[in-house]
């Protein structure tokens, strides 16, 4: 872009809505159309989970993430755990091992200190499990009603794991797509925990650090790994669509191979939701050269919690830039990126 010419703002929505934060198309429109032109020197070329910087010849990864989940505590975890695992995972799927974390708190006046302490303990425990340290942060308190109890942002920095070279442009037809475990646990758990739908199930958020699995993969098949992503908001479908758009190829997924707990399937059938659009907090997708797929699966299996990893699809030439889901009996459908939040339907 020539110096001096003003950046073109393409974001025309008159107001911000929930869909802009849902991780799907509206979010992309906001980032591509407003943030990228003004803040990213117009690049915003492909969105990835972390930025890779080179400082004095050393490559480091840098990422940040905000956590605003309600309820604060849910089966399987809490906002504090998400805040640590989420940022460590963004670094991990970008090929980096988290070295240090910063955190900011925005607290609502009137928040019981016990609630805050519980979350800080959760963050400390999660960080210790992973072996990463907090090195600083910031705190703001706002008037009662201006924020919903507690918002946390974490920023992480990490060193690149040797042997990994990740780029959507390195993806080739024939490459295999793997997922680290069953999808949809987190999003459905949160939906049920909100209590508005009167549904009950034995489900827990899958929040965890995926770094051990990434390191096992890197050690086993590092040079064969093309791309990784953690499918948080927007689900597997959104992440794979981003890849398809970035590499211009087609991602073919076999529906029956995608691991999913019965309860997630049941909740999605009742509510008319597509499990591929539901958020995950402890899973990641990886694309590897087809010759390395079996070894990758073995590597997953060496890590506790990696036993449910599966090969779920492959990359092909056509239909270009699309994600195609096939049924066991020869039917297929295109799965798009999430548009707004997944909404239950009755029709």
């Amino acid at each position: 872009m020539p110096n001096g010419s003003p950046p073109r703002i393409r974001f025309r929505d008159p107001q911000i809505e929930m869909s802009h934060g849902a991780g799907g198309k509206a979010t992309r429109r906001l980032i591509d159309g407003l943030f990228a032109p003004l803040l990213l020197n117009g690049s915003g070329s492909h969105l990835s989970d972390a930025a890779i910087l080179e400082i004095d010849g050393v490559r480091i990864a840098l990422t940040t993430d905000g956590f605003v989940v309600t309820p604060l505590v849910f089966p399987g975890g809490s906002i504090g755990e998400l805040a640590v695992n989420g940022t460590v995972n963004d670094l991990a799927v970008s090929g980096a091992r988290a070295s240090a974390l910063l955190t900011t708190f925005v607290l609502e006046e009137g928040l019981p200190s016990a609630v805050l302490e519980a979350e800080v303990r959760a963050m400390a425990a999660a960080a210790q499990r992973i072996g990463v340290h907090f090195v600083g942060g910031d705190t703001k308190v706002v008037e009662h009603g201006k924020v919903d109890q507690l918002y946390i942002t974490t920023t992480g920095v990490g060193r690149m794991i040797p042997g990994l070279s990740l780029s959507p442009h390195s993806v080739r037809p024939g490459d295999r797509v793997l997922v680290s475990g069953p999808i949809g646990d987190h999003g459905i758990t949160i939906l049920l925990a909100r209590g508005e739908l009167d549904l009950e199930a034995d489900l827990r958020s899958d929040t965890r650090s995926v770094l051990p699995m990434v390191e096992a993969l890197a050690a086993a098949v590092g040079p064969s790994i093309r791309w990784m992503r953690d499918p948080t908001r927007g689900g597997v479908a959104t992440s794979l669509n981003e890849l398809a758009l970035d590499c211009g190829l087609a991602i073919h997924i076999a529906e029956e191979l995608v691991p999913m707990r019965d309860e997630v399937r049941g909740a999605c059938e009742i509510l008319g939701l597509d499990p591929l659009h539901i958020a995950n907090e402890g899973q990641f997708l990886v694309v590897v050269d087809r010759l390395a797929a079996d070894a990758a699966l073995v590597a997953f299996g060496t890590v506790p919690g990696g036993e449910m990893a599966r090969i779920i699809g492959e990359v092909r030439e056509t239909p270009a830039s699309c994600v195609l889901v096939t049924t066991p009996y020869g039917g297929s459908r295109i799965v798009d990126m999430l548009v707004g939040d997944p909404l239950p339907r009755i029709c």
Partner: protein
Amino acid sequence: MCLAIPGLIVSLVPEFQRLAVVEVSGVRRRVDLGLLEDDMPGPGDWVLIHVGFAMSRISQHEAEEQMRLLRMLGEEGAAIEEIRGYDSAVQDV
């Protein structure tokens, strides 16, 4: 208008007899049985659920009968193919 799925009645809600706890693949929800009051189902029965109401009982007999008919299509089809094979063989002679 059409999203309705099969669920298993696991228990009745004690305070409201027309409410049942229904389970779909491990997910439970209270479902109103009021539309089936002429032939009230109970725990162990399968019902079709739509917007939190049971619309109909599911007949296991009819479901099995349907699958039987469909499976016969496959066998009929194979039989017809075999016969066609004989016919053409006869004509070749």
